[in-house]
Every structure is written in C-alpha cells, then in structure tokens.
C-alpha cells in the first residue's frame, strides 16, 4: 500500500467550515478513490486546523489491470450455419485489430454476441490523483463562500498552498488556477518562513509539531484540557462546561496554550448568565467555578506556545475589565426601566419586514398562550401567561441584549425577577427561547413551555405564510430549529392536544397579514412538521418504517405519534407482530380502490363473518378508550385479538362473492376493521421480512 497525504493551506477558516470541509473531503475522496480502483474507500482519515484541511489515505500505488469486454455483432449474424465466420465477424475483428481466432461468444441480456476481452493496463496513482483532487476540492461547499483576487473560484477562505504526497513524492496538480507545491508552512507567527518538505505523514506531523502546528484536533483538545486542569486543580476549581466553545477553540488555534486570568471580584455581583456570556462571547474565555460558585477567574486559549511574559493574560484582563464595566453599566441601566415600560418600544422593532413588529408578535403570542393555558389545564395561569407574552420580547430593547444577543429571554427573566414581577411569568420569559435545538433542554416550567410553543409556532406559521422555506443548507428564518423546538417541548412535556387546531389558532392570529391562503399554509406546516418529526424519531434510533407507520394516522396529536411509535417499537419482536402486519396488509390490499360501505348485520350470512363482526365489536369497544388515553401498547395488543377471527374469515369466506350486496357487505366489514387499525398505525408502511415482493 501507498500513503497519500493532502493538505489544503488556507487563510483562517471558521471552525464549522473546517469540520464541514473535512467531512465532505472524506466522503468525496473515499467515493472517488474507490471508483478509480485506488482504495476500498476505507482507511481515510481527515484532520485539520483553522488553516489546514488534511486528508490521509491508504491507497494502492497503481490501479489493477482491468479486463474489459468488447462486444461485437450478435452470434447469429457472426457465423454461418457451418460455423465459419461471416464478413460481419471478420470486419469486427479487423476493425479492432485482433485475429478472428481470439473472438469468443458472450451471453448478454439481449442474447448471444461475439466479442473479445481486452486488458487495459492500470494507471499509477500519480496519474489519476490530480484530476480527482481538482474535482474533489473544487466541489467542496461551505455555508458562505467567497472569491479572492481575480479568481472566479469560490471557497470558504482563500487557498494559499496545496500539497499532495504519494509515499512522500509531491504530486503535481492544479485547483482553480493554483498549482501544487512541494512544501507546507509552519505557524504563521512563529515560523512564517519555514518551508517544510515532508517525506511521509509521520514526518509531516512531527515537522509541523516543531513548527508549532498540532495537526490533530484530538491532540489539541487534549492539550487544552490537560493544561486547564493543571491550572485549576491546585485551586480546587473547574471550568464552567462550554462544549461549543471548547470545540471552536480546538479548531481556532494551531498550537493551543491555556492561560489563567482574573477579574475584580466586584463584578461577581452581576448575574452569572451575564458574566459567563460576557466572557464567552467577547473574548472566547471560559468561566471558572468552584463548588458551583463563579470565581473571579477565567481561562483563555491562545494560539501560542506559552505566555512567558504574561502579556496575553494581561491584555485579555484589560479588555475584559472594560467589557465587564460595560456589562455592569448595561445591567444597572437596564434595571432602571420597568419591563412593562420598555415593552412599549417593541412597536419599533422589526420582527419580519412583512409580518410587522415585535409588538404585534407579542399580541399574537398572547392569544396563543391563553389558548394553550386552557388546553393544558392551567387556566389559573392565564394572567401570568398574558403578562409573560406581553413582556417576553421587551429585553430586545435592553442594552445588554443589544450587546449579547444570546442573552435574549434570559435577560428579560432576570429583569422580571429583579423588578418583582410574578415568579411564574419571570420564569417563563427566562425560558421561552428554550430549547434552542434538539440537544438543548425544554423549559422546566409549564408556562415556559407554553410561551416557547406560542413563540415558535408564530414564527413558523408567519414564515410559511410568506412562502419562506427551509431548503438544503439554507434556513434563514430558523424554521427547522423552531420546529425542532416545538416538537421537543410537546414530546418532553407530553402535551396532549390537537396540533392542527393549534395551527389554526396561530393562522387566525395573523389574520390577513399572510400572503398565502390559510389552508395552504396549514398543509405546508403539517408536511414540514411531519418531516421534522421523522427526522427527530429516526435520530432517536427508531426504524424508519415504524416511524412512517406511526406517523400514518396523521399529525393531529404529536404526543400520540410518539406513543404510537413506542408501542410499535415495543411490540415489534412479539411473535404476533409479523403475522398481524401481513394480515393488515392483506386487508388493505383487498380494499384498495373499493368504494366505502356500511355493514348490514342482517347480510352477515356465514358463521365466520358473524364471528369476526362480533370479535371486532368487542375489540373496538376496548381499544377505543385505550387509544384516547394514549395507551397504544394495550390497544395494539387488543387488536392482535382480531387475528384468529380474520384468519378463519379469509380461510372460509369468499370476500369477492358473486352477489354484489354480499360482496359489498363483506368489504364494509373489512373497511370497519381497517378504519380501526389506521388509528393505531399505518401498517402498510411496516417492512416485514417474510413479505413477498409485490
């Protein structure tokens, strides 16, 4: 095997772009390399820093020789009855430069043909790679792309050097007008001019290491963690965990150095949320806690070998002091204006150009929150709900949120608490942006959940009402994030209500503001949510076919879709499951394209159909209240009881009886059963192993 190494050296890529670029490189190169017969698509590693995208792959140094069949005329036209070749066969051989004796007969899909096998010699990797690399690199896409100089090529940030090595030999290739070199460069500050000409990946890694570049992200992450621990252990303190910040810093530096700094303890009077946000967002610093209490300390990560003179720490402390002073000033100022007073300014804050102001949004949210209070049996909270809806966006007008937008919601909640507003309302305001994604926690309080749902559904309905959609990687209005939030809150809080009517309420609140008709928007919303739920469930590890089956009965009750799914999932390995699924499918197949009918009891002539009808009656009566309660596991087990009666029915009774009335009556019986089943799941979606291909 040979070792293939690629390095794309760029100006500083955002951390998320490094990860996206590496993922794509891995995917496209593994496909391309195996298509070219250079690898099995295994053994590809990617790594990088903010300045480098690196691929390491095991490849074969040369493609295998390929056997290629060349097909000529049909056998029938190639040989005379006595077995001698026709002019057609001779012509074919001559045109391909072979002797007629080399011709063989091949069986193809279209019959027997003559032809011969040509062996094409494999090419060396060095010859094939340039084209693969040019295509692979120029095919990368990033959330935001740019051009530079006079080059029409687009990439995340300017590419400054390209290096490809096969067993240490530089590859000659070109991407977007940039020719590959035979070297790479070290750290831009500490070793700007050191040209490194690696002879292998090991050499590359260690030479870069000497030039203050730690190429493997895991190694950098470990360095940050180990150094941090060394700083904090003697103090008995820990980092306030910020996984996203750690991830960003791991990619933002080529050589991490963690340093400990401090700020004046007076600033500890600021709310912890404000402090940690000021540290994180302004300067990418970690907060330090001891026994759950914030310390007047921070940990920063520099792109340097050390901070021997302490200048990095001092500089950061100076900037932080000014920042915390600002934050303190904002906090004091913001406290002076009651939230209710501040909320009056919301009419001047744009929610969305065509959807109007945040004041209007607050009014709509108020209606939705009141509606939800009734649906969630917390009518006693209506007063607080109205207050929370009116005030929850007011913090957009605070200096603090203008400075640190990620504090939105939490800042309002903190102010509400300080200003002595009712606790439940303050809490709801604090929590109403939660969950920010599937990984984030739902609001802990009921009113927080209500406000969160009202806020998010209003945004989604508004956007869909203007025809704004999430497509591919573009989701400017955060539709997916909001929809995930809605689903997560409903599922976490087990909210048992009609989602369809909730959408109606949200549409009603907009009135004529939306550009698309309400029915159309509602349909679009239901379809969008079905897609998001499918995504959430599959991410949760459920089988796709069970997900489809559980979503079959519709989306009117999201909580119930999850209960249905869990019931299906729980019973899928029971011995009754597969036979039942097959039976349900059989029922559905018979009913396909049949007009709906009603069962006439008097026409049930045979014993077996009478028996089925009576079992059905009992099953239905028992299953219906179970479903209403959401106990789909029990309901599912209950309908399993139809199986023996159905079996006998299909064995003994001819559904498609000659007499029309009888036939229709039997079909109506099956329809009644099918209607009941369809309230539990769409069984036709379930894939069963014993199933015959249709």
């Amino acid at each position: 095997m040979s070792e293939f190494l690629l390095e794309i050296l760029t100006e500083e890529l955002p951390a998320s772009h490094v990860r996206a670029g590496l993922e794509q490189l891995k995917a496209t190169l593994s496909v391309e390399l195996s298509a070219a017969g250079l690898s099995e698509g295994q053994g590809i590693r990617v790594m990088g820093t903010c300045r480098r995208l690196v691929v390491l792959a095991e490849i074969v140094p040369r493609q295998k020789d390929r056997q290629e069949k060349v097909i000529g005329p049909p056998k029938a036209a190639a040989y005379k009855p006595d077995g001698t070749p026709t002019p057609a066969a001779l012509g074919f051989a001559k045109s391909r430069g072979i002797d007629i004796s080399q011709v063989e007969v091949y069986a193809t899909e279209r019959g027997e043909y003559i032809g011969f096998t040509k062996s094409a010699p494999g090419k060396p990797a060095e010859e094939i790679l340039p084209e693969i690399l040019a295509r692979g690199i120029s095919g990368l896409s990033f959330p935001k792309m740019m051009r530079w100089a006079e080059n029409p090529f687009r990439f995340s940030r300017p590419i400054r050097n390209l290096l490809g090595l096969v067993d240490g030999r530089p590859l000659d290739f070109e991407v977007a007008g940039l020719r590959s070199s035979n070297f790479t460069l070290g750290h831009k500050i500490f070793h700007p001019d050191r040209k490194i000409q690696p002879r292998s990946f090991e050499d590359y890694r260690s030479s870069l290491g000497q030039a203050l570049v730690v190429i493997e992200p895991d190694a950098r992450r470990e360095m940050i963690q180990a150094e941090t621990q060394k700083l904090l252990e003697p103090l008995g303190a820990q980092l306030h965990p910020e996984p996203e910040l750690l991830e960003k810093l791991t990619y933002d530096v080529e050589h991490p150095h963690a340093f400990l700094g401090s700020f004046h303890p007076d600033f500890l009077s600021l709310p912890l949320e404000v402090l940690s946000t000021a540290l994180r967002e302004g300067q990418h610093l970690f907060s330090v806690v001891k026994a759950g209490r914030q310390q007047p300390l921070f940990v920063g990560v520099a792109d340097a070998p050390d901070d021997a003179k302490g200048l990095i720490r001092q500089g950061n402390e100076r900037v932080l002091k000014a920042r915390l002073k600002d934050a303190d000033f904002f906090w004091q100022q913001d406290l002076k204006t009651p939230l209710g007073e501040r909320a009056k300014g919301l009419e001047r804050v744009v929610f969305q150009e065509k959807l109007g102001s945040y004041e209007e949004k607050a009014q709509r949210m108020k209606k939705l929150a009141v509606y939800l209070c009734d649906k969630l049996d917390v009518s006693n909270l209506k007063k607080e709900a109205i207050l929370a809806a009116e005030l929850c966006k007011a913090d957009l007008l605070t200096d603090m949120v203008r400075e640190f937008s990620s504090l939105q919601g939490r800042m309002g909640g903190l102010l509400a608490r300080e200003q002595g507003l009712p606790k439940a309302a303050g809490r709801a305001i604090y929590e109403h942006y939660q969950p920010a994604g599937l990984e984030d926690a739902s609001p802990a309080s009921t009113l927080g959940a209500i406000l969160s749902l009202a806020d998010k559904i209003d945004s989604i309905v508004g956007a869909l009402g203007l025809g704004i959609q999430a497509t591919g990687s573009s989701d400017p209005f955060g539709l997916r994030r909001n929809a995930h939030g809605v689903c997560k809150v409903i599922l976490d809080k087990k909210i048992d209500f009609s989602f369809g009517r909730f959408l109606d309420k949200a549409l009603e609140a907009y009135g004529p503001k939306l550009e698309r008709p309400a029915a159309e928007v509602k349909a679009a919303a239901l379809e969008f949510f079905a897609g998001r739920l499918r995504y959430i469930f599959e991410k949760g590890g459920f089988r796709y076919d069970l997900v489809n089956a559980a979503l079959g009965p519709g989306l009117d009750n999201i909580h119930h879709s999850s209960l249905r799914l869990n019931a299906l999932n729980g019973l899928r390995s029971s011995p009754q499951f597969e036979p039942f699924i097959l039976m349900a499918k059989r029922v559905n197949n018979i009913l396909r394209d049949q007009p709906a009918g009603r069962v006439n009891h008097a026409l049930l002539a045979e014993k077996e159909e009478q028996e089925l009808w009576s079992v059905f009656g009992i099953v239905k009566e028992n299953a219906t209240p179970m479903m209403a309660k959401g106990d789909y596991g029990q309901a599912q087990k209950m309908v399993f009881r139809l199986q023996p009666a159905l079996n006998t029915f299909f064995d003994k009774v001819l559904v498609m009886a000659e007499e029309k009335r009888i036939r229709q009556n039997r079909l109506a019986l099956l329809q009644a059963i099918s209607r009941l089943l369809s309230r539990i799941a769409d069984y036709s979606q379930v894939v069963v192993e014993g199933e015959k291909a249709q």
Partner: protein
Amino acid sequence: MTLQDLIMRLQKFWADQGCYLAQPYDVEVGAGTMTPDTFFRVLDRRPWRVAYVQPSRRPADGRYGDNPHRVQKHYQYQVILKPSPDDTQQMYIRSLTSLGIRLEDHDLRFDEDNWESPTIGSWGVGWQVMLDGLEITQFTYFQQAGGIDLASVPVEITYGLERLEMFLEEKGDIYDLRWSDEVSYRDLRLREEKEFSAYNFEQAGVKGLQQMFKLYEREAAALIKKGLLLPAYDLCLKCSHVFNLLDSRGAISVTERVKIISEIRALVIEVARKYAAEGASS
C-alpha cells in the same frame, strides 16, 4: 507611541506597499468603506491601492463621554488593495510588527466576521482581528459593492485606531490615550462626545431632519439623471447620515426603517451601475 505616531507609521508602511495616501473625506460617513476612494474605486477591474484615516460617525454609539470604549465618532485607518494580493495576510502582519509589536509575545487571531452594509448594497467575507482579546482590525474580502459583483476582489483592512492605540499604550479608557505628547484624547474629544451625544439623542430636530432627508434624496435622484454621479453619491451619504440621526432620535418606525434603507440602497445601486457602465464603455 502616540496616536499621531501610530498614524504616521501606518502611512509610511502602506505608502511603501504602493498605496496612494488619501486625505479624510469631508462628508459624514459611518465607515471608511463609504467614501468615494473606496466605494467608486472598487467597482472596476483597474488595480487600486489606497490608504487613509477616516473619521467615522455612528450617532447611536454616543455615550456622553461616559463609556471607556464607545464613542459616536472614531477614527478608522482604511486600506484598500485591489486585486487582493496573495500575501495580504503577511502584509498585514508586517504592518503590526512595523508598529513595534512583538507578535511572538502575543496572541493574534483571525476570528470569523463577515461584513455587510445594506445601505450601500455591499458585503464581504472576512474576520475581526483580535490581539490578546482586543478587536483591532476588520479584514474583509469585498464580494459585492453597490449591488455589483466585483470581478476583481479588493481586500479591505480597517484598523480601529483608538483600539490599536489602547493596545499600544496599554490603556483601558479611550480618553486616557495620547494623541501627541502634548495633547490627550480627552482634551480633543470629550466635549465633542458629550455635546454630540446630547444632540444625537435629545436635540436633533426630527422634523428638520425629515425634511433634509427628502431634500437630499430628491437632489440625489435628480443628479443621477444628469449623470453627475459623484455629487449624487455625496447626497446619498448625507441621506444615510440623516437617517442615522433620526434613528438615534428614536424617530424611525418598523416599516419606515425598511423603506428608508431600501430607498437609499436603490439610489446607491443606480449610481454604482451607471458608474460601472461608463467605465466599461470608456
């Protein structure tokens, strides 16, 4: 090093890189990007290198002289290199070492920060440059200006002079900076900040400003028709500044804001389009 030393060193450095040293433009702007030496000169493919100090006004950033960082007028040092050279970043790093900063003792970072100015139909991709946690520069590859995709991509390097000087003097308060050995930033600017903050937030006459806006806007439109694009652009800049004043007076509603920005942008885009078309035909 005083602020004026800093300016002189940057002037020398960028003149050595082939930049023409422009003088500050005399119409109020929010950023050096908006002056004609940048705005018009980036539109075509002709090579262009320019550097200049530009006082930049952002009325809503006023803090009555109470805030150690925030002011309603600050000084930018603006550099444009078109097309962007391959060694732009090293050039910039050298400019910092030419100020006597030993970067080996510090932490210099290029932190993702893309720039956009909807009012002049412009955007770019780049970074804020952080030195030991302090933002000292915006570094941007322009992609579009005046609504036009730029075939020859300029790089814009905008130093925040006060920020950089705070780093050099190790000061935490902007007013403690020294402009020269004899004159402090406080001497020069504090009264201005106080009075302009009062003007921007409290005293600016809303009615008058609204009328001014209309006048400037009409005049700009008329001048565009006559092909007097540079004066037309000046009037667009005036519209933009008056808009900012009205905004800091809290006199702009939701719908107005969107409308006004798109009105100014429409004028600016027309200026840019005509300018580019003339260039193409000459």
